[in-house]
């Protein structure tokens, strides 16, 4: 990151990890064989993304991808999400949803996710808490995850 940021908070929001995932989102692709999918809409800005999950017979998420456009925060969050939920059970994915959204909205420590899942990268999103109007950007993909798992077609963050 460029050194013009004399300001800690802004630096905290746009961490190198976030900017990296925003520039080069992982799993940015449509899953043609998706078993579950949902759209996330942020009415504030009109941004939309679509999340795809491939869930197998053992209720394991075996693949995840997304498409759409959005700000650095929402793109990075979606990208990190797809990495996080691949190869874990649906129940664990739902636990991740709870942990992440609670951590971002309530600032709670969020110990709902099983310890076996490494959520440390997602700490990169924590800077968003200082920007309440941007929390919705960070949680958008996660709401879409929750919707997809629960077979709803759309999630909004209002």
């Amino acid at each position: 990151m460029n050194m013009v940021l004399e300001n800690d908070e802004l630096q905290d929001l746009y961490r190198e990890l976030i900017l990296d995932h925003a520039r080069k989102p992982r799993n940015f692709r449509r899953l043609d064989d998706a078993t579950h999918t949902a759209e996330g809409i942020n009415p504030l800005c009109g941004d939309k993304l679509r999340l795809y999950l491939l869930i197998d017979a053992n209720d394991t998420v075996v693949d995840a991808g997304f498409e759409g456009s959005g700000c650095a925060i929402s793109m990075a969050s979606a990208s990190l999400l797809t990495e996080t939920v691949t190869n874990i059970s649906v129940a664990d994915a739902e636990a991740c949803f709870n942990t992440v959204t609670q951590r971002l909205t309530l600032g709670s420590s969020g110990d709902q996710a099983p310890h076996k899942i490494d959520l440390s990268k997602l700490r990169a999103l924590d800077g968003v808490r200082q920007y309440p109007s941007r929390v919705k950007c960070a949680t958008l993909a996660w709401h879409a995850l929750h919707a997809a798992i629960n077979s709803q077609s759309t999630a909004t963050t209002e």
Partner: protein
Amino acid sequence: MNQPQPTLVADIAACRNDFPALNQDVNGHSLVYLDSAASAQQPLAVIEAVARYQNDDHANVHRGVHTLSHRATELYEGARDKLRKFVNAASRAEIVLTSGTTESINLVAQSYCRPTLRSGDQILITWLEHHSNIVPWQLVCEQTGAELIVAPINDRGEIELDELYALMTGPVKLLSLSHVSNALGTVNPLREIIDRAKKAGITVLIDGAQGVPHMTVDVQALDCDFYAFSGHKMFGPTGTGVLWGREALLEEMPPYKGGGDMILEVSFDNTVFNDLPYKFEAGTPNISGTIGLGAAVDYLQSVGMDNISEHEKALHEYLVDKLAGVNGIRLIGTARNQASVQSFMLNDIHPHDLGTIVDHQGIAIRTGHHCAMPVMQRFGLSGTARASLGLYNNTDDVDRLILALEKARQIFA
């Protein structure tokens, strides 16, 4: 005065000082404001909340990432949360912010009734209703071919329950009923009526414009389907109001108006409406007014709705006693359960003349039809004089009114 003073709730006496408008002279006399049923005065806390918002926090809501927009949104949505608690709604999605009771009722008429009513269907109201709870139904009946039917009231100004229940056996789709009559003060037995309506499968809207200022309202306990009220009657700003509706009903209703904020997505092929409650809130809302209304809720809760009810009940009894002592007074509205709203006539003096004469002595009462012409017709009058008591009134106010009425009686003797 040789009557004993009623026991009024002690702390409420001090509330009067919270209302700057009451501290003024009108026509050379200190103001006695007995017109709160038309519109209540505002406590300083409300006036200041609005001014503070304008001085420090104003921006448009919901749409911006900048700090002021965020602050404005938090304050505005915070008011919605306060209102939700105030009427005990199950969720904030059920609190639709409107410009007042009139708009809330029109919203239900146009979005709930208009798309579904057919010729042969009926809407049921009563003779007690305010024009805002009559004309929207006349309009939608004309638009749909449905029929408006009306339950009568008795000489005390109470709904004839037997006749109301008899009317419920017809093809009635909606009952729309006031919580408290603004012309007569009658408090309707909502729990019983709603119970009967539910059993008959009838959707129920309560016009709560005169309910919320006087008593605790719990929409879940009432078990109605819609509850409409205005900010300016509960010590908040004009241009604000609420439609509470059951989420399941609101969910099914098409939007009322189109515009910004009530959509998720607009294109010329396909427009997707927003979630509740935003689906019903098109355009920039009355942000400052709603924030003021939130402050009014805080104020009412700090005084305590039960204290207010108790105070007003005692003061209303005092008023009725005193009026009884004035020669030639005829009370209009003598329901067994009555809020602190009292209509009356004095001999054959036209209410308008009465209004002018007491105003001349610094006393504000309302005179005329009170937007309830059918009630007037029921009593064979073109209008009444009406004194309505709010939490800030006291026995001195009543005594001043009585003296002024005596003077009017003498002028027209």
